[in-house]
């Protein structure tokens, strides 16, 4: 098979480019530690979530913001349903600056999205699954939460807020049902 010299060169350059791309991503994962949403949130009975009866599940508590059991940072439990985030929509979610915030997000009905607009805090919210991920906010401020997965005819009304406050002002009971 005859392959032109330029074609060979291009082939080689393409391969180098591809390997370099993969390299940057591997670096992102092990260097700066960009973590993925994985399967460690576990599964949950979607009907239980819909009933609001969390007593029977061990990997999800009533929606709200909690001090972590290990005393380090906070845990935020969020339930998305047509067309609100609880907490988030009726009252803003409040988290402290500079601490590890672990989100646990699940859905009571259809698939929703959970995105802090303009940031890479972004996950799908799939019924039966708990999306679990850690975020550290370095600065205080307010973020918009938007449902970015079509979830029904009121999809465009589904939004909320998250406030990052100084540790001194943080109060675990704020912004949750608990």
């Amino acid at each position, binding site marked *: 098979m005859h392959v032109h010299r330029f074609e060979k060169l291009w082939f080689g350059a393409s391969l180098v480019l591809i390997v370099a791309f993969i390299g940057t991503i591997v670096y992102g994962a092990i260097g700066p530690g960009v973590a993925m949403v*994985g399967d460690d949130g576990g599964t949950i009975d979607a009907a239980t979530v819909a009933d609001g009866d969390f007593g029977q599940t061990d990997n999800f508590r009533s929606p709200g913001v909690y001090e972590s059991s290990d005393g380090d940072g906070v845990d935020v439990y969020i339930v998305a349903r047509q067309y609100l985030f609880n907490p988030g929509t009726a009252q803003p979610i409040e988290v402290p600056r500079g601490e590890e915030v672990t989100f646990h997000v699940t859905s009571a009905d259809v698939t929703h999205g959970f995105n802090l607009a*303009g940031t890479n805090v*972004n996950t799908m919210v799939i019924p039966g699954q708990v999306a679990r991920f850690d975020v550290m906010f370095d600065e205080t401020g307010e973020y918009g939460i938007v449902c970015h997965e079509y979830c029904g005819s009121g999809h465009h*009304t589904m939004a909320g807020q998250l406030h990052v406050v100084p540790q001194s002002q943080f109060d675990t009971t704020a912004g949750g049902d608990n």
Partner: protein
Amino acid sequence: MATGHPDDTSTLSEDDYVETEDGTRHRSAFVDRYPEAARIVRICLGISFAAFGVGALFGLIQALHRTNVLRVIPSSDYYTLLTGHGVLLALVFTTFGIAGLFQWASTRSLGIEPTSSKLTATWLGMMTVGTLLAAGTILAGLFDWIPASADVLFTFYAPLKAHPLFYVGAALLIVGSWFAGASYFLQYREWRSENPDARIPLQSFMVMTTMLMWYISTLGVAVEVVVFLIPWSLGLIQQVDPLLTRTLFWYFGHPVVYFWLLPAYVIWYTVLPKLSGGRLFSDPLARVVFVLFLILSTPVGFHHQYTDPGIASGYKFVAMTNTFFLLLPSLLTLFTVVASMEHGARQRGGSGYLGWLKALPWEKPAFAGIALSGIMFAAGGFSGMINAGMNINYLIHNTLWVPGHFHLTVGTAFALTLMAVSYWLVPQVTGKRLQLYGVASLQPYVWFVGMVLMSNAMHRAGLAGIPRRTAEPQYDQFSFQAVAGSVGEMRIQIAIGGTLLFIGAAMFLAVMLATWTMGKSNSQLRVNGYLPEPMSGATDSPRVLDNLKLWAAIAIVLVALAYGLPLFDMVADGVLSPGSVPVPA
């Protein structure tokens, strides 16, 4: 011997004329040689273009609605139109367009008519009925008094539920396309029985590798629809696992983009070099590219699920690696396409480092449209690399960036290529000379400018966090912050770009309609179907390239490796759990 017609970019081949006994020469266009295949191509293109017209109208309404420029529907109906836009354009316009192109390519390169008219009637019938059912249930959603709707978007994720007929329609469209593929394979088999030792003609090779990829990948969506969604929408099973059905969808959802793209590549490899005034560089390399697509296209779907909970990061990583290797055949194509254009330009007397670009026939609609779609695809490929990056993806997942990206790929690389090649092909399958030539010459540029505006603004809006698939430009609880430019300016660009695109679509349809209705059959065409031989022919390549069984087997093994474990994980706890009841119930 050029005939002096404006579209003659290369000499007519002697094959294009037949001599009768009295010594007169008659035209021998595709329609004259293969009347049956030409009829099938006409039917496919007709339905494809009709779907395109309706879909483009919905696109215009969306672009104006979500930017708050003009609102003709209530926001709750936005999703009905968006479902229609996605289904009519991404599924119907494409599938029928491809079926037509492939029927042409297969027939032309093998030199024989389709073998079974029963089979033809079957697949045309299934695909048409499927389209009518799906489109009908979607449109019924606009009318409260019709008890059917399908506002589930073209991704139709459970537990959002559509009317059962919507799923039946989707299944018929896909299974119909399987039979269309069978018809191309039968044509090949007949050709093979008469040509036992010859190499597979290039276009037929491309058609068959693409269809093999399509068979492997549509299996996922077929299982999703037939095993889960149809019984569930009929109430036969009470719940489905949203993550499992979503995974089956995306198993098909990425390869489908190659099903859209490869027919464009068929045109770029086999027709564009001729339209540029030259010939393809290398037939063997084109085959390598198609084989790579067959092997690599399917085991990548998890890259649409980077942000899904319930799937281990390791599987996502494997999909990402595969995705990046899938860049290889596209990068090779980029090289070949540009090199072929340059070669053509130099044959036409172009010279200089970049000066040759001026020698290309930019005033001719077929060439201009295909070349412009290639340029836009390069930009789309770039934003696609961003999508593929596991960690960068988190910034843009489900934002307007994503439609910004695929309006460059399927919405331009495929769509504009199909429109442009129609300026060359429709005269050959109708026997009628292209009408409204001036409108046709301008049309690719209108589409190009419209897409530059709409798509660049969509990409930037995505970076600002503006979601896709939403009827409202703004939310009550916060406002979006633009990274570059302002949000208001992006909205204007989307609205203007969308309007220009619609005008481009209307211009195209006007040319087609005029050609079909006003053109005289049997006219002297301005185009001819002669495709010059590649510089390096099929015989230069190792025979193993033609071993389609081998490549299909490798593709299946790779799919099993990438999907075996994750799918096993999902069904290990029961296929319907963790389940979810239908919404609306």
